[in-house]
């Protein structure tokens, strides 16, 4: 990985401008491996960004030797372009192509400079085409990309759930002028209109009126002004009695109307505010007229006028609400500033078919959405003016929805939105910070032969702690903050510092121990009566799941003897459980077998071997096919697909039922496509979705806190589902109205399915 490369070994030797606040090695990491680049250069003379996109291959992951393609996007002010180009030239050794794709209004201005500095041919790409390509890309690949801005709400940003179908939409790009583009498919878009009254009008006219030169300063002025001093409002014309006419008195009747009649001085702030309203309202109105004419309800706003500025997002949002009476929401994008560069890059990388893959935002490498409130974390704010980064990992598999989701468009893979729940946010941020020492220790321990492991682990600690701090100030930095995103961020950071699988040794050890008990466990289960066995199987899964080395409360008690059926059960609370639909489940088990069960498994060791496998065995014996879905890549002590293949083979050698299941293709192991301790049912391996469909899956089983509680507690499926977990976190148990080690056993039958009636008690 890049950290092992020469770049960071001697940062002082670089020719980078001293004013660049981030160490260049961090910004341009992996540059030496970069395959190709693209650049998007804005035209704006002041405070503007150029963006470089580079894709590279990461290599050397100690265990699996995987190669991952990653996209790096870097945003910086045009002022730094020369030093950046120098740096790139010095470190760029591996590019295959001799062409750099460039887009943006500034592309022709810097063409000569780039060609001279890099010795590459600059290939200009159409700005709008790149923009749309980039927009499609982020909308498809980044969950929580789009958000609604609400200035006065508890959380300023309301992220939209990912809708798998992103088309059609309207993109309103507010640069110096406005372009309104209708996008109907990946390569089908049309500029249906526009307006000359845009960001350039605000800036140009604003500069004339207020003698303020900078765009940011104009926005600053505007945020302090009172437009009612300059604008003629309805109430100025109607006096006090507009109410009887059904008009709102505060409506602007004539922008700048007062400056036409009143012979007085107007303050800069008031004029800037009036101008901002005038332009935002006008753009909003036109956008609505176009949306109506083309019958589009999704309208995204971008361009330098919007780019993260709360003032303009607020006035545009207000305008859209006003003109559509709330029917259309103004949507903004987290990575709006990157669209052109992403698009240009994709144009250049067409031979690699980047669109046939799924991509995921790498939380470790991306700087996230910056705070937009000026009083919030000024340090972050300053940095965002210099460099900003986005990194996207190419996922080895294409991700799609689980076909069994009742309503994919309303599915949210998170039970609690920490962006909106301040109390929960505080707890979980604290919790993850507390756990950090342990994670660092385990990471070091996982690589005993590597001398610099301790150093890397320390870097990991700093990085993740910094992320937690950022999230404390800007919970919205990476979309909605959730336990899932916190866990994923930790995994990304661990990966970043070459700790892809800190639990690998522990997992192996635990698997070996648990395997020894397998036959004994199966035998004792077989001795039970049918009804006793059903209960013992469920308790087995639950007890096995308690053995989660990642959970804080359990790791202290991990010395408990390893027998799923007896000793561990002391952890489990007596029935009735916190959520208890066991009776309905038992009744169902008395009925006809399921056609096919999809089982999302959780931990290695006791959990998978002594809890899940006997349960699977029972299902197979009943005549139910079983699809075991496990992680594609490592996360905590979760069993990965690769490990599960080996484990299942070993169990099959001891157990004819499992062996027959494998042989007859009635037991299948598939990967989920995820490397997260959580489960997002809207981003699953395409193959898994295919298998689920082909086998007519009619039962989905999800076990463990991360998958059944944090993420899919409320997930509604179109077939029967069983969610099993032990609450191993006292705060969460408290939230759900139970105690530590409370059991959730949630068996659900979707409404309208005649087979069983099911009442699930839910926590209050």
């Amino acid at each position, binding site marked *: 990985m890049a950290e092992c490369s020469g770049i960071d070994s001697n940062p002082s030797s670089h020719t980078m401008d001293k004013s660049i606040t981030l160490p260049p090695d961090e910004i341009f990491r992996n540059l030496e491996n970069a395959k190709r680049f693209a650049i998007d250069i804005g035209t704006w003379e002041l405070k503007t960004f150029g963006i470089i996109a580079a894709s590279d291959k990461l290599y050397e992951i100690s265990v699996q030797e995987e190669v991952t393609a990653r996209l790096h996007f870097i945003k910086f002010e045009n002022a730094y372009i020369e030093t950046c180009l120098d740096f790139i030239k010095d470190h760029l050794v591996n590019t295959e192509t001799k062409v750099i794709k460039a887009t943006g209004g500034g592309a022709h201005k810097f063409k000569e400079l780039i060609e001279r500095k890099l010795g590459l041919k600059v290939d200009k790409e159409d700005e709008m085409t790149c923009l749309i390509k980039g927009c499609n890309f982020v909308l498809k690949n980044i969950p929580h990309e789009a958000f609604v801005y609400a200035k006065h709400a508890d959380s300023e940003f309301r992220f939209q759930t990912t809708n798998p179908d992103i088309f059609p939409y309207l993109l309103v790009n507010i640069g110096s002028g406005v372009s309104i583009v209708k996008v109907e498919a990946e390569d089908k878009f049309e500029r249906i209109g526009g307006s*000359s009254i845009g*960001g350039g009008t605000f800036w140009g006219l604003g500069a004339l009126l207020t003698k303020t030169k900078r765009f940011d300063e104009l926005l600053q002025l505007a945020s302090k002004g009172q437009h009612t001093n300059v604008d*003629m409002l309805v109430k100025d014309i109607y006096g006090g009695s507009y109410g009887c006419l059904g008009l709102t008195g505060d409506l602007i009747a004539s922008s700048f109307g007062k400056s036409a009649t009143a012979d007085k001085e107007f303050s800069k702030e008031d004029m800037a505010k009036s101008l901002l309203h005038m332009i935002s309202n006008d753009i909003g109105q036109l956008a609505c007229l176009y949306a109506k004419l083309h019958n589009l309800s999704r309208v995204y706003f971008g361009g330098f006028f919007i780019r993260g500025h709360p003032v303009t997002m607020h006035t545009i949002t207000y305008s859209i609400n006003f003109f559509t009476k709330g029917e259309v929401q103004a949507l903004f994008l987290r990575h709006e500033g990157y669209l052109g560069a992403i698009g240009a890059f994709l144009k250049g990388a067409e031979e690699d078919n980047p669109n046939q893959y799924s991509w995921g935002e790498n939380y470790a490498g991306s700087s996230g959405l910056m705070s937009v409130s000026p009083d919030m974390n000024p340090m972050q704010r300053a940095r965002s003016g210099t460099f900003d980064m986005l990194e996207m990992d190419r996922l080895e598999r294409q991700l799609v929805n689980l076909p069994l989701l009742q309503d994919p468009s309303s599915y949210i893979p998170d039970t609690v939105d920490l962006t909106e729940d301040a109390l929960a946010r505080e707890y979980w941020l604290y919790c993850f910070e507390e756990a950090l020492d342990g994670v660092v220790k385990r990471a070091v321990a996982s690589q005993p032969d590597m001398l610099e492991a301790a150093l890397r682990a320390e870097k990991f600690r700093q990085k993740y702690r910094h992320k937690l701090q950022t999230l404390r100030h800007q919970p919205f930095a990476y979309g909605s903050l959730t336990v899932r995103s916190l866990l994923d961020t930790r995994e990304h950071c661990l990966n970043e510092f070459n700790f892809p699988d800190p639990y690998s040794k522990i997992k192996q050890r635990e698997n070996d121990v648990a395997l020894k008990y397998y036959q004994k466990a199966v035998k004792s289960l077989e001795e039970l009566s049918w009804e006793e066995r059903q209960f013992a199987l469920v308790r087995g899964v639950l007890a096995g799941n308690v053995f989660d080395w990642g959970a804080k409360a359990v790791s202290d008690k991990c010395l408990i003897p390893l027998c799923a059926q007896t000793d561990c059960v002391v952890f489990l609370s007596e029935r009735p459980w916190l959520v208890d639909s066991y009776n309905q489940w038992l009744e169902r088990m008395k009925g006809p077998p399921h056609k096919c069960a999809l089982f999302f498994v959780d931990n290695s060791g006791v959990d998978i071997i002594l809890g899940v496998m006997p349960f699977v065995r029972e299902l197979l014996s009943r005549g139910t096919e079983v699809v075991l879905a496990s992680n594609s890549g490592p996360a905590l002590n979760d069993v990965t697909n690769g490990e599960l293949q080996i484990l299942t083979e070993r169990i099959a050698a001891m157990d004819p039922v499992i062996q027959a299941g494998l042989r007859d293709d009635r037991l299948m192991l598939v990967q989920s496509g995820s490397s997260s301790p959580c489960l997002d049912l809207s981003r699953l391996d395409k193959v898994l979705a295919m298998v689920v469909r082909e086998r007519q899956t009619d039962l989905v089983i999800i076990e463990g806190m991360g998958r059944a509680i944090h993420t899919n507690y409320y997930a509604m499926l179109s077939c029967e589902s069983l969610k099993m977990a032990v609450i191993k976190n006292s705060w969460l148990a408290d939230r759900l109205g139970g105690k530590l080690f409370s059991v959730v056993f949630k068996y659900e039958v979707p409404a309208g399915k005649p087979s069983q009636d099911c009442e699930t008690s839910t926590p209050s």
Partner: protein
Amino acid sequence: MKLLTITTLRHHLHLSPLSPSFPWFGMDIGGTLVKLVYFEPKDITAEEEQEEVENLKSIRRYLTSNTAYGKTGIRDVHLQLQDLTLCGRTGNLHFIRFPTHDLPAFLQMGRNKHFSSLHTTLCATGGGAYKFESDFRTMADLQLHKLDELDCLIRGVLYIDSVVSSGPSECYYFENPTEPDRCVQKPYTLENPYPLLLVNIGSGVSILAVYSENNYKRVTGTSLGGGTFLGLCCLLTGCSTFEEALEMASLGESTRVDKLVRDIYGGDYERFGLPGWAVASSFGNMMSKEKRESVSKEDLARATLVTITNNIGSITRMCALNENIERVVFVGNFLRVNTLSMKLLAYAMDYWSKGQLKALFLRHEGYFGAVGALLELLHPS
């Protein structure tokens, strides 16, 4: 209460029960201008002449013998309609305007001329009818009959268009709007006017879709109107009147202020069918300090005019498309002596709709609301 008084007066004056007592006024009090229409009866019988009270006579003489009132009041003589028959009476219709901020002076005049002694109803529309209602009462002892702005506007448009038969045509358009050298004003007959889009450009802009005399809706409006043009011109150039601003605009060059498509792309932006001469960013050149320093006040006035006018044009065009209407009538005082804007609108409608949309104009631009108010006095609906 006042209406009752009229009935008794009518009785007293032995007038036809259909026609109210003189004087006949209609008033539209807007955000910037007060528009007043006055019907001067020319068929006064000797008997009536004798009965006509002195106050009424004096008002009639004052209004008809002057073309300017005080410092700011103006009678648009060229718009005057001769020998009009209204409510069985024949006479001339006069069109008078003055700035809304001079309304107190007007009220003072009404007081001096004992207007209230005439026991007439003053029909008024526009926001000012509401805002200044109490001023009319307290300062001039006048009771206003307040009327809906848009009702009056439509009534006025339809009426004026129907009564103007001689002289210059009320309705006109520009032939060959996309060829400046061949662009000429041509009369237009507004027979079967429906459906039509009526765009009233005053201080702000209202856009109405009219399907019949009584069936219309306000489609939308924009705050970027005549008030914005004048307001911005005052701030940018230091001028103080509409006429001054227009004069400057006529001398300026907006392309020095605006960033055109060709300034960015070197020519047409063919990918999207944008011609090089199209404005890409209004005031876009003003982002640069050097260019800010090199433009004249005239250039700025012209750019302001072009910006506001084009924006009205594009919102109008979108409304016409959404409402599926092909005829657009532009009215309002922003267009007064403003051929520049009218030609721009005619051009924009024609060019961007590829000839589908026709921009029509009416000679009595800003007076339709006031005319509608007068009609309400004569034929209460």
